[in-house]
């Protein structure tokens, strides 16, 4: 369960560059909810994910994950609850380290890291089988440096790392935006599969309306730091891109800028 209450964040407060990024966001998610998030550039989607992840402190409001108030916890402590995949494939993995070393680090998320071996023999087999499920041939390159992988491979690996230790909440921040369409589709399908298999509570930011409609059981649209649309259940299932555009115009009093959101 996730409970966001009245989250506010202003960047560069009291300067000419002042930007109200989150303007009182409240949201309640149940376990197993898979929310897709859309909105124009600067609407506050990624900012909201960063607020949940604790990248910086929020000005007001609270973040409660699974009954625990994490508002004051540092980013690395909140990581115990979260799996995260970023837009930039470079961000989620350590390029100078081996594929299995990256996985082993993710496996120990939230655990004490002591003087035991960083990768055990048993783990090696586990990772080999896990990587085989990706169908990218990575199971034969266990000790290859991650820097040698393509963007799509790195993103798929990051996804495995984010879910290797089942997170309370999975945050996907436009994680397919930097990939070519075919790879993006592959990574998205894989994400959906992992989310369903593990029944993960997930927030996925996307620029693609069709994807936002096709995946998940709930859709949120953000505009100027606020949630302006929240569609769930049956209504979400029957949603079309046209509906979404109309609803956006009604809710925001603004035409949806189609340059900024992909329609197809």
């Amino acid at each position, binding site marked *: 369960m996730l409970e966001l209450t009245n989250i506010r964040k202003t960047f560069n407060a009291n300067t000419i560059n002042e930007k109200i990024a989150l303007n009182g966001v409240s949201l309640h998610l149940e376990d197993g909810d898979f929310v897709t998030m859309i909105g124009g550039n600067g609407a506050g989607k990624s900012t909201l994910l960063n607020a949940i*992840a604790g990248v910086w402190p929020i000005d007001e409001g609270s973040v409660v994950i699974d009954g625990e108030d994490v508002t004051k916890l*540092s*980013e*690395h*402590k909140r*990581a*115990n609850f*979260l799996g*995260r995949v*970023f837009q930039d494939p*470079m*961000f*989620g*993995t*350590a*390029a*100078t*380290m081996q594929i299995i*070393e*990256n996985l*082993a*680090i*993710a496996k*120990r*998320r*939230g*655990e004490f*890291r*002591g*003087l*035991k*071996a*960083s*990768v055990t023999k048993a783990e090696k087999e586990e990772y080999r089988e896990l990587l085989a499920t990706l169908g990218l041939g990575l199971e034969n390159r266990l000790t290859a440096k991650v820097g040698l992988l393509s963007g799509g491979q790195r993103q798929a690996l990051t996804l495995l*790392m984010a879910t290797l230790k089942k997170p309370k909440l999975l945050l996907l921040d436009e994680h397919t935006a930097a990939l070519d369409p075919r790879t993006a589709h592959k990574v998205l399908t894989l994400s959906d599969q992992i989310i369903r298999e593990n029944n993960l509570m997930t927030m996925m930011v996307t620029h693609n309306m069709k994807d936002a409609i096709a995946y998940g059981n709930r859709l949120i649209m953000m505009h100027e730091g606020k949630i302006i649309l929240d569609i769930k259940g049956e209504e979400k299932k029957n949603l079309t891109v046209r509906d979404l555009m109309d609803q956006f115009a009604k809710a925001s009093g603004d035409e949806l800028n189609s340059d900024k959101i992909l329609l197809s």
Partner: protein
Amino acid sequence: MNIASLISALPGATAQGLIWGIMAIGVYITYKVLDIADLTVDGTMATGGAVCVMMMINGANLWVALICAVIAGAIAGLVTGLFHTAMGIPAILAGILTQLSLYSINLAIMGFKANQGINVTKYHLLVSARNVKHIAANNPIFVMVIVTALLIGFLYWFFGTELGAALRATGSNEKMARAQGINVNVGKIIGLMISNGIVALASALYAQYQGAVDVNMGRGGIVIGLAAVIISAVLFGKIFQNFALQLVGVSLGAVIYYIVIQFVLWLGLNTNLLKLLQALVVAVFLAIPYWKAKMTKGAKHA
């Protein structure tokens, strides 16, 4: 210029190179593994010797003195780490601040004298320049090869542990490290402590080797350390991929550096100009990867 004098200087250059190779391994840990340029080491490179020599003069056992030297270095690393993480000072400046304060601290350790001698005939020392041409177990080249091997073995083990992997991840990608629940500040502090502990060990050995500790002993140390790291990367980068072999390469890099310096001096360079030469050589070697990248980029566009 007589070739015999060059050859007779080689054992000394090799022994010095091996001792500075230990120091360079310390630099490698901050510069390459943690991606921090830590200037604390210029100070720590005198601190270790100061602690070791003063303790031995006052009757301490060789091994106790060495261990205390390492601890003193680790504390210096801790201070730099706290300057950087708890006080938000950029790493390079944090190192400079500690380095500066260490000048006073080192003088204080040495009883406010600029140098303190320790005579190999009166004290039991691990390495001494006096034995550099003896074929015996106390030959400093032989001793330093063993010390280097032990150190590399220890570091290879440590960076293969969960904690060591977390440190490597911190240096490789901080964002990833935080997202995976690693406290990057603690990681940086531990890395700085290990690095400066190793540099202090090199310092203690160097003071024994030359039979004295001098408050200016570490001046420019970071440049020598970087030179060894870079020489290693240029000469052995392609063949030494494994972590332990990379450390071996760094040690060899320091030896090559000292032999080259010995050669340049033999050619007749004024000793006072040595540091200028050192800085220029390191600057050029630091530039080589940058120039290489620029050239290959240009080639792609063409």
